[in-house]
């Protein structure tokens, strides 16, 4: 098979396995895309784990620990896929810590309140799951297969998020204010999450059928699914322009693409601190990996 034949193959729904021939560009783009996903799951743990201690009931403590555990589990699944494609896990972690490799914007921001715990599980995870469901059709089969497990586990996170939010909204005025204030802070990053609206025909990820959905499509799906959920609770979205037009498309204020670029290139409010935490945790536990994996190498 040559590159043109391969392109036609994946564009007509063909699936690729680890041992199959693939164009160098496909392999490189695949690794970069999947690696970013793995990095995001691993970095996503850090804003949330602070709240495990502060969880106000035992049930919430358990649910949140399980959620964060799932995210670590997802990074394990994802890095295994990357490794089988040719880039070892340790190299991925090196590149993450050095800032060479990226992770999603939302994980560069601080969590400030218990309201954030709810909003992240309800809305940030929802935005992610929309992208993840589209990845179930990824042309690279090993990745598509782990996405099935990931999507299934993410559905519990959304339930947890919804439960936290509904409990807060049915509680005291202060609790309702926690949710609104959190939403106000997270809305910007949420709108940026799916990326700028590049036409999918111009997106190499779509051309190779690594992604099966364009960025704007994903964002519209998110708004369609979740703005009604937000409004029905009496919450407001901090965007005057947000409305569904007569053609059924959501209109909104232009997201700050400069902010997105600035953040994902490593300049988010919490980027440095979180990468430092990863670095020091990794350095202080290097001896364990040496002891445990050395003979196995």
């Amino acid at each position, binding site marked *: 098979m040559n590159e043109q034949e391969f392109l036609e193959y994946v564009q007509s729904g063909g699936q690729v396995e680890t041992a199959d021939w693939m164009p160098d560009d496909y392999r490189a783009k695949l690794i970069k895309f999947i690696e970013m996903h793995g990095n995001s799951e691993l970095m996503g743990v850090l804003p949330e784990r602070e709240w495990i201690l502060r969880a106000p009931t035992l049930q919430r403590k358990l649910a949140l620990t399980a959620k964060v*555990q799932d995210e670590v589990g997802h990074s394990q699944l994802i890095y295994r896929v990357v490794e089988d494609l040719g880039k070892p896990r340790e190299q991925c972690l090196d590149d993450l810590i050095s800032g060479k490799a990226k992770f999603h914007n939302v994980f560069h921001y601080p969590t400030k309140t218990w309201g954030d715990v709810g909003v992240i599980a309800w809305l940030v995870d929802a935005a992610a799951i929309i992208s993840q469901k589209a990845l179930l059709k990824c042309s690279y089969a090993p990745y598509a297969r782990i996405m099935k497990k990931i999507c299934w586990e993410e559905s519990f996170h959304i339930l947890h998020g919804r439960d936290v939010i509904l409990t807060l909204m049915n509680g*005291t005025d*202060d609790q309702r204010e926690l949710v609104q204030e959190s939403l106000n802070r997270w809305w910007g990053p949420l709108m940026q999450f799916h990326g700028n609206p590049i036409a999918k025909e111009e997106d190499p990820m779509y051309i190779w059928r690594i992604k099966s959905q364009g960025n704007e499509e994903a964002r519209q799906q998110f708004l369609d699914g979740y703005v009604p959920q937000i409004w029905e609770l009496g919450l407001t979205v901090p965007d005057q322009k947000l409305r569904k037009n007569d053609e059924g498309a959501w209109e909104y204020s232009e997201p700050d693409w400069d902010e997105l670029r600035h953040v994902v290139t490593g300049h988010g409010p919490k980027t440095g601190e979180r990468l430092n935490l990863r670095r020091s945790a990794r350095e202080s*536990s290097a001896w*364990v990996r040496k*002891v445990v994996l050395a003979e196995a190498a």
Partner: protein
Amino acid sequence: MNEQEQQLLLEIADDELILGWRDSEWTGVAPLLEEDVAFSSIAQNEIGHARALYELVARARGTTADELAFDRSPDEYRCAPLVELRLMDWAETIARHYLYEEADAKRLEQLKQSDDSEIAGLAAKIDREEAYHRIHAQMWFDRLQDEPRFAEALERLRPQAEALLDSAQRGEHTAELADLWQEMTIVRRSQPAGTKW
């Protein structure tokens, strides 16, 4: 359930809660991703065990598990100093894990003999889950036993493990517990008692 039995269950519950929280501090930063997932399950089990024990005592006292877990003042907790320590070195964590499981196995054996069928029943359930923890601790012990830092941690922590089985050695808390309690209850205390979360 008499007062003495309640106190004993609270000791174990407090141990499990605080240890479970300390163990969950490794979530996301454990030495290996696969281990991160495994150790997090252990932390969750410990908190789950604490909850089940609190529920038993709560029923006897007409209160709730959450109120017992969160709404006492730091000096009312009955946990042993060993579980309060913040140990972010893997050798120390595994040393504590190993020593704790060793002691816990003994006290669960005793509880399984309790005249109170509820206590005995719960102890048996917990013991069945702890079997997995013991396998995990042993697995790591076997891997690390030749590492000097592990052997050293084991010897250093072993005396504190004795308090796990001796109620008379409890009561003195580390300075860390008050800080831990502050953070553990900060969200809960932000609203009036009885607020749902």
